[in-house]
């Protein structure tokens, strides 16, 4: 029982985190059919900037966190302009490689500027634990799913209720018609990359107090989040969020009951099976065959 609860707590926390990062993939993919494969590195960038702003520059977290997220957004925009757009314009798929290379570059640039030592981004929410059904939970672990779902809902609200948000949805649903409404689709694509990176950076800040901050902390997050985005089907935000929870829970349950050495093998095998069963993802819409 304790085992199960521990697994559930861990799974929900991680799952919401994967979902949040995966939303970033979903957003850019919906808008532009491209993704930023440096997404994992942006998770790291968010955490590193948070650390630098708070611990080295002594900023208040109320300033430091939003600033870190904004910087990540700027980086996302840079990725779009430098590493995605030039290739998309030439009808090349090399943006895939270029964003991967961008991630390698960022990881190593951080390694040399930030340092090679793991550091801690302290949070008052990891100083004590709440005891609950035989296991302990950091308040931060409770905050993460709440924050993730909150961000997802806020995004939903942003998309449905603000003009710019709806403009983004319009680009997703019909790019050409959106241009005819006067929407600058190029700017929207940039914006979606910025938003995507802000989600990743925010996720990095949320997760950092539970982990340590170092230059390659994001790689696996990026990869798992991509798996989640694919599992969710890439098209629906709620599907991706849900897939995040499913992935997180399955991962935690597998680790708990089979041991972590088989986690990747079992989880990825299940992923392949799931995609065999539903080639467009669990919650994706099958692409209409156009003849």
């Amino acid at each position: 029982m304790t085992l199960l609860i521990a697994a559930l707590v861990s799974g929900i926390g991680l799952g919401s985190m994967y979902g949040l990062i995966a939303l970033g993939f979903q957003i850019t993919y919906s808008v532009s059919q491209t993704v930023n494969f440096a997404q994992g590195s942006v998770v790291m960038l968010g955490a590193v900037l948070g650390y630098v702003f708070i611990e080295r520059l002594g900023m208040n977290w109320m300033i430091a966190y939003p600033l870190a997220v904004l910087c990540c957004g700027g980086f996302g925009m840079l990725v779009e302009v430098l590493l995605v757009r030039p290739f998309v314009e030439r009808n090349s798929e090399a943006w895939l490689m270029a964003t991967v290379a961008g991630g390698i570059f960022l990881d190593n640039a951080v390694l040399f500027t930030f340092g090679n030592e793991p550091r801690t981004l302290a949070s008052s929410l990891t100083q004590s634990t709440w005891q609950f059904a035989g296991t302990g939970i950091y308040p931060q672990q409770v905050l993460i799913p709440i924050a993730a779902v909150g961000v997802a809902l806020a995004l939903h609200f942003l998309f449905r209720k603000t003009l710019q948000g709806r403009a983004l949805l319009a680009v997703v649903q019909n790019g050409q018609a959106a241009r005819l409404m006067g929407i600058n689709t190029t700017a929207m694509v940039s914006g979606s990359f910025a938003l995507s990176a802000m989600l990743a950076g925010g996720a990095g800040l949320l997760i950092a107090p539970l982990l340590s901050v170092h230059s390659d902390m994001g790689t696996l997050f990026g990869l798992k989040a991509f798996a989640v985005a694919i599992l969710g089907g890439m098209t629906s935000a709620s599907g991706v969020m849900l897939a995040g929870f499913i992935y997180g829970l399955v991962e935690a349950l597998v680790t708990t009951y089979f041991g972590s050495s088989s986690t990747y093998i079992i989880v990825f095998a299940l992923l392949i099976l799931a995609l065999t069963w539903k080639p467009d993802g669990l919650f994706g819409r099958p692409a209409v065959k156009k003849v």
Partner: protein
Amino acid sequence: MRTSRFLPQMTRRALMSGVVGLSVAISLPALAADTVKIGLVAALSGQSAKSGQAITRGLTIAIDEINANGGVLGKPIELVSRDDESNPGKGLVAARELVQREGVAALIGGLDTPVSFAIVPFANQAKVPFVGPWAAGTGITKNGAEENYIFRVSAVDEYVDEAITEYLIANHGVKKPGMILINNPWGESNEKGLTKALEKRGMETAGIEKFESNDVDVVPQLTRLKENGADSLFVVANVAPTAQVIKSLDRMGWDVPLASHWGPAGGRFTELAGKSGEKLHFIQTYLFVEGDEKGDAMFAKLQAAFPEIETTADVTPATGIANAYDSMLLLAAAIEKAGSTDGPAIRQAMYEIENIEGLIKTYADPFSPDNQDAIGPEDYVFAHFVEGQIIPVK
């Protein structure tokens, strides 16, 4: 077929220029022979960058000292570094490049056990001495080669596992320890060593749990160990993952005796793990202790060479620095003794050098064909963190 006549011409030209370009690139660096080159193959980027840096620092100090005293064979020592990215393939390529293109007299390095394993057969075949200042995999030095060119100035997993098992039994009287190990070659090597140590004593383990270096949460694994009745834990992982174990234990409210390999010494462990990190006892081959003359001198030199160093917290892992420093001293002594940079001669000299004053200890007779490890269990120290400083236990 106008074009087919044109094409081979093009290709020929391309090929020629390629060949010329390649050979220029290849031949350029190999010429200068007014230094004695020592090659370093280690993980300088990625997760292990910190440890790679420690090795580089130890070697740099040693080389500076040696060169200040006239070098070896009348020539200064030059360090040539290569990044292996923890990938054995890249490590082997780098080792070959250092030996066959740079013409190094000896190799130092191999942070990760598999990288060392990849280099071992090549080093033996090429007859180039290879000194390991880090990787603790038992089979690296005990590789079964007739002419063994592999030496080590570092801990050996099998001995470490023996030592930490003994430590838990002696100090806590444990009966059923559990293992929580990082899922990498190092973890696997210690799984073998610890299992062997327990079998030797007729003890059973509460379980062997692995975790990944980026796992946020180790509670599931620890809970399994707890439910299986573990009365103590062996921890084998680097600094950040070990901190994850401590934090997970904290959350579970499980206070259990802990003994660890040297992983936590690699950085600001207590910053990451919190106050509870002080409960973890781990093994060291060397640590900077206040008031120790040799250590203070070394620290001063490090500060001079690397201005970014402020406190002893900045010179972690001390073990890496000390091992690398001593490796270099031993190697330089052997080269001097051999009177040449010829591999077999250096190897022979390695067995002959005596009473070398190192940082860890004075090496009376560091190597023999039966024991290519300069450091043994008697040199291990148990330590723990207190106020951010590594202090010997007791």
